């Protein structure tokens, strides 16, 4: 058999020659040979051990005094990696305006797999998995139970919309509010921060169960979690910046605990994203509008921007899920009813929160302004209910069901 010649020139093993050798041998069928020619006797002598370790063998050598030296390496029968071949080079994924490579284009128009093997590992999109890896046991392996049609674009937007709670909020502006106002704001901020914890823990609990085949969902959830971490940060900071702290209310804890108990991804999307964060959109808009200082206003504004995305995902996911599987409608309603049963002893908005919001909207403790503030809070409650029903309809529920679900929603707002 003739051997292809490979001129090692000055390259040594461990110094780059092995890269050339591997490339040359990979291109051969088992039994194929290359003649490696080197001016170095030491390199020629060492080739035997290298070849054996790499699964090949040497089948001849020519070692004339003074060189050059030649060793014939025969490709062994074993594959270096127990995986299917990579395949030919494809047309690369498209770029968008400005040369941007969007996550939505990762699959080049092909859908994500409908079902992914529960045991597959961390295999990136299009990568070829090597056999023999340890088995995983993912719980969420069904695309439709996780997906939203715009999930990749939403993850993309989340990355683009990152902000910095330390620098992007004019903290000094919140230093000198009057006592009564600062106490009110601190209580409202504490309440929001408390809820943001749940908004983080819910997606975080699902993330490690999502099959890695759904990279877009993994990226989305990671962004969601990161958003919530910043929300915890910004509202905790706002609660503290004026020198007071608020009270973390037991009724809020009860409500949030039941949120964490929802084990179905779509159920959690309905309860957290559509209903909880949806209701918070109106709360944050209210806080932004009535904020007594620029720091509170900025915090509410920035968080609101993120929550819009989370609510969008929830609506998009629930609508797609119910459209694909009509039985889901009943399951989702049942999830909301189950939660409501656990919250049966809760009634109405927490007085502390209601008072805090009233003072913020009033701007002072003057009777006329307080009355105005109280009216604004009542209006807020109505706006929340109207918008909840509207969002539920957008998610695919009929008006009666939407109204029913909205009525079941927790008085804690989240």
């Amino acid at each position, binding site marked *: 058999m003739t051997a292809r010649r490979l001129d090692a020139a000055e390259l*040594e*093993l*461990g110094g780059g020659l*092995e890269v050339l050798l591997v490339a040359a041998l990979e291109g051969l069928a088992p039994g194929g040979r290359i003649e490696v020619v080197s001016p*170095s*006797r*030491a*390199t020629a*002598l*060492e080739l*035997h*051990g*290298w070849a*054996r*370790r790499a*699964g090949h*063998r040497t089948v001849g050598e020519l070692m004339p005094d003074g060189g050059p030296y030649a060793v014939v390496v025969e490709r*062994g*029968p*074993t*594959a270096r990696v*127990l995986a299917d071949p990579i395949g030919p080079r494809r047309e690369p994924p498209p770029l968008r305006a400005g040369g941007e490579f969007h996550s939505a284009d990762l699959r080049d128009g092909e859908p994500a797999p409908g079902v992914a093997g529960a045991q597959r590992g961390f295999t990136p999109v299009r990568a070829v998995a*090597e*056999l*023999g*890896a340890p088995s995983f046991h993912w719980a969420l392996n069904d695309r439709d139970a996780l997906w939203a049609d715009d999930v990749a674009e939403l993850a993309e937007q989340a990355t683009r919309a990152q902000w910095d709670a330390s620098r992007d909020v004019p903290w000094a502006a919140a230093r000198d509010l009057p006592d009564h106002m600062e106490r009110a704001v601190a209580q409202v901020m504490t309440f929001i921060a408390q809820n943001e914890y749940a908004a983080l823990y819910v997606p975080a609990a699902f993330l490690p169960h999502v099959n890695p085949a759904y990279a877009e969902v993994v990226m989305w959830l990671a962004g969601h979690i990161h958003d919530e971490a910043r929300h915890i940060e910004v509202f905790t900071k706002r609660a503290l910046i004026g020198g007071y702290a608020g009270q973390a209310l037991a009724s809020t804890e009860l409500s949030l605990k039941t949120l964490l108990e929802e084990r179905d991804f779509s159920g959690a999307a309905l309860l957290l994203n559509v209903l909880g964060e949806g209701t918070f959109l109106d709360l944050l808009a209210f806080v932004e509008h009535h904020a007594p200082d620029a720091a509170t206003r900025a915090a509410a504004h920035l968080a609101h921007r993120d929550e819009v995305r989370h609510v969008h995902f929830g609506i998009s996911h629930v609508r797609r899920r119910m459209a694909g599987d009509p039985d889901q409608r009943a399951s989702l309603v049942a999830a909301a009813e189950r939660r409501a049963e656990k919250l049966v002893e809760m009634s109405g908005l927490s007085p502390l929160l209601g008072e805090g919001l009233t003072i913020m909207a009033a701007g002072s403790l003057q009777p006329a302004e307080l009355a105005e503030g109280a009216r604004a809070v009542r209006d807020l409650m109505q706006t929340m209910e109207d918008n909840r029903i509207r969002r539920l309809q957008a998610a695919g529920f009929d008006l009666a069901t939407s109204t029913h679900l909205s009525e079941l929603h927790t008085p804690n707002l989240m």
Partner: protein
Amino acid sequence: MSRATAEVRVGCVAYHPRIVTIWESFLEHFEARSVPTDYILYSNYERQVSALLAGDIDIAWNTNTAFVAAEQQLGGEARILGMRDLDAEFATVIVTRRGETFEDAAALAGRKLALGSRDSGHAAILPLHYLREQGLDAESACELVRFDTDLGKHGDTGDSELRVVRAVADGRADAGALGEPTLAALRGERVPAVADLEVSWRSPTYYHCNFTALPSLDDGVAQRWFDALLAMSYDDPGQRQAMDLEGVKRWLPGDRTGYSALAAAMAAGAPET
């Protein structure tokens, strides 16, 4: 089936915790091939050879030094039930610092030659033997720098060879002997100590480890066990990890032709085991 009643008992020396990983995997393979096998660990090859001769085990996974020792005590009647592809073309290399290579073994006279454990065939006994064949009695002509670590394990741990290359790299020795696969592994792992070392000398090839059995082992059992061993496949994802740990890509039948140099060396000089 309980391993306590396994049909075949294989002895192996526990030179590293990975031996357990390897054999737990191999045992599944033998079980699946209907040759229930168990393994018994020894801390040194001398005890393992004694256990083989005493019938405590049926097969010993031996180094070449241990095989020759067993063979001598069995009057040349030991049976070989397979070896790794690696074992069939084993060699020892002598490394020197960059720019200090030699072509003739005689150049080592008067120099410091580092050797691995004195009971290692590849890192001590055979390099001395082959140099002697090439006219250099290194024991008298060279200043030997010996690293006798992990005695009883016949060089399996690789510790003494790592000390050899470090001694050459930092100038405590002018040249050092080690197994060719050890150098390839150190090179592959980019161990800094070998970065500026070059191969000056390569021994003829010889055989290394094998599965040694007593001549009294039942022919049928021996054949079934041998067939199962050779059926192990590096292309089987369930077996590749253990085979990688054992350094084998393919099991081969063994024979005794590749042990004559070591047998001669051990018979001639004190085998120093």
